[in-house]
């Protein structure tokens, strides 16, 4: 069994979605986000994380449906011994020594595995019609870029980073 990253599931309440806000998630989002496919290798994911310097990428299936996220937290968790990342696990690993060789060996072991096996499924998503305030709240709570997902189809239509939100709010009239 693969160890999954942990996260929260959070969606908007229906009564919020019925409102007609002045500015929605769809108006703010980056509509052509960089994504990982579920069958991309961890090696490719690592290259992308290093080149884009972002914390997470949305992961989609062959039809562009959103599956979850994969990023630095998931990858670092895969490199550490399970005993240290589990609830009630080891609090300290200093006795393992410097550990560089072990970490590199672990990375070699998982390089060719598909990211779909280790994706964080429990991740916050937001609908395109979500109002700005709710989007800011969710971004604040999770301190991460939010995938914007069209609810009926499950397709990823964009992402909103905290920078996108601050740029919109901070823009001069």
């Amino acid at each position: 069994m693969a160890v999954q990253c942990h996260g929260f599931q959070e969606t908007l309440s229906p009564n919020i979605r019925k409102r007609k806000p002045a500015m929605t998630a769809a108006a703010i989002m980056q509509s052509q986000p960089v994504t990982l496919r579920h069958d991309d290798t961890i090696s490719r994911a690592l290259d992308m994380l290093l080149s884009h310097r972002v914390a997470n990428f949305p992961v989609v299936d062959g039809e562009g449906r959103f599956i979850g996220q994969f990023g630095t937290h998931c990858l670092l968790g895969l490199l550490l011994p399970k005993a240290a990342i589990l609830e009630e696990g080891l609090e300290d690993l200093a006795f393992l020594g410097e550990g560089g060789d072990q970490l590199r060996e672990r990375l070699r072991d998982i390089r060719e595995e598909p990211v779909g096996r280790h994706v964080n499924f429990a991740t916050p998503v937001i609908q395109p019609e979500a109002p700005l305030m709710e989007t800011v709240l969710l971004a604040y709570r999770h301190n991460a870029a939010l995938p914007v997902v069209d609810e009926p189809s499950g397709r990823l239509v964009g992402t909103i980073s905290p920078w996108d939100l601050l740029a919109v709010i901070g823009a001069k009239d």
Partner: protein
Amino acid sequence: MHGHAGTASTALFGWDPLWVATILFIAAYALIMSEKVNRAVVSLLGAGLMILLGVLNQQAALRGIDFNTLGLLTGMMVIVAITRKSGVFQYVAIWSAKKVNARPLGILLMLSGITALLSALLDNVTTVLLIAPVTLLITEELKVRPYPYLFGIILASNIGGTATLIGDPPNIMIGSATGLSFNDFLLNLAPIVALIMATTLVPICLIWRRDLTATEGARQRIMGFNEREAITNPRLLKQALTVLALVVAGFVLAHPLHLEPATVAMSGAALLMLLENLGRDGEHQSKSVHGSFAEVEWVTIFFFVGLFVVVYGIEQAGLIKRMADALVHATRGDLKVSAMAVLWGSAVLSALVDNIPFVATMIPLIKSMAPVFGGAEHLRPLWWSLSLGACLGGNGTLIGASANLVVAGFADRAGHPIRFLPFMLTAFPLMLLSIAISSVYIYLRYL
């Protein structure tokens, strides 16, 4: 109507207290076993109803609570909560793995042995919480299946806990109710526990012998561990080991000094908190002490509180006396038969249901059999039978003891699930083997 003892001749609405107490007792037992409602809530509700329905008045209910058991449990929980922060348990586990040159068989034996030893001195759940993560790390580095090691740890924790007065809650309760001392438990139970531990490890090693191999490279990784780095707070380590040594000495000397084990454990806990916080400002002290008390398993403590009142209720209402008479009748008043019935009955029941309410019920039951067997001093074979049966019985199934469930939960999260049936198919026969050994021991030594 309540008499001088605070117990009723009639309950609310003129009901017979025997019936009221019996119905409450059975309902509480059934709810605890169903695990639909938290066991502490059930026992406190049962205790409240014993009072509200007039079986006991409040003074009588308070008399039923064994504060010695509560104090001993709480004090030891605080001591362990502070000690674990020093990293000493990881140190011992890694040190032991290196002592056997990281050979898988040796590691299995060492980790099981250490678990048994620690369980004899500490709470079983705490012990497995400390040992299971290191075990998982070692097996991960060795690239071997963790199942045999985790299985060994589960069995060792329940077996080791049987050896002393403080090792397992049933023993704490028996010791507190009977006045049997730390030394009594050590001298009477530790030898047979050591034999059972050794005997149990033989089939475990044989069953999983094919899993107990590792490459030279993997073993070298373990040998490269620096156990000294596991000690995260050397000052705290010295303080904690000093206090633990004083507490164990206190348990040994408690009887001649006319001290209760709870006094020793609570004093030890207070001393360790004092030493840990020496030189700190008020805010840090407050945070640290709050953290230590937060580590106490309050659900367990309150479960005991309610349970003591419920059992005292049925005792005062006369149900325990009737159950004891029935047991004496069934065993024809023969001590040998009674001891074997208590031993095997406790073992099988403890494998299936929570052994704490069972032992809480059995204690007054056995006490009330004293006149039949010629006085309280002749009941000792029954107390050792109850202890061995209730503690070792926990090894029969995955739900037999809290420590089993804690290891199973951890293994599951790590992706190495321990399933109920496969566990039972191996563990139950091993539990029966331990009870068979105990039977021979009880028979030869006491009957």
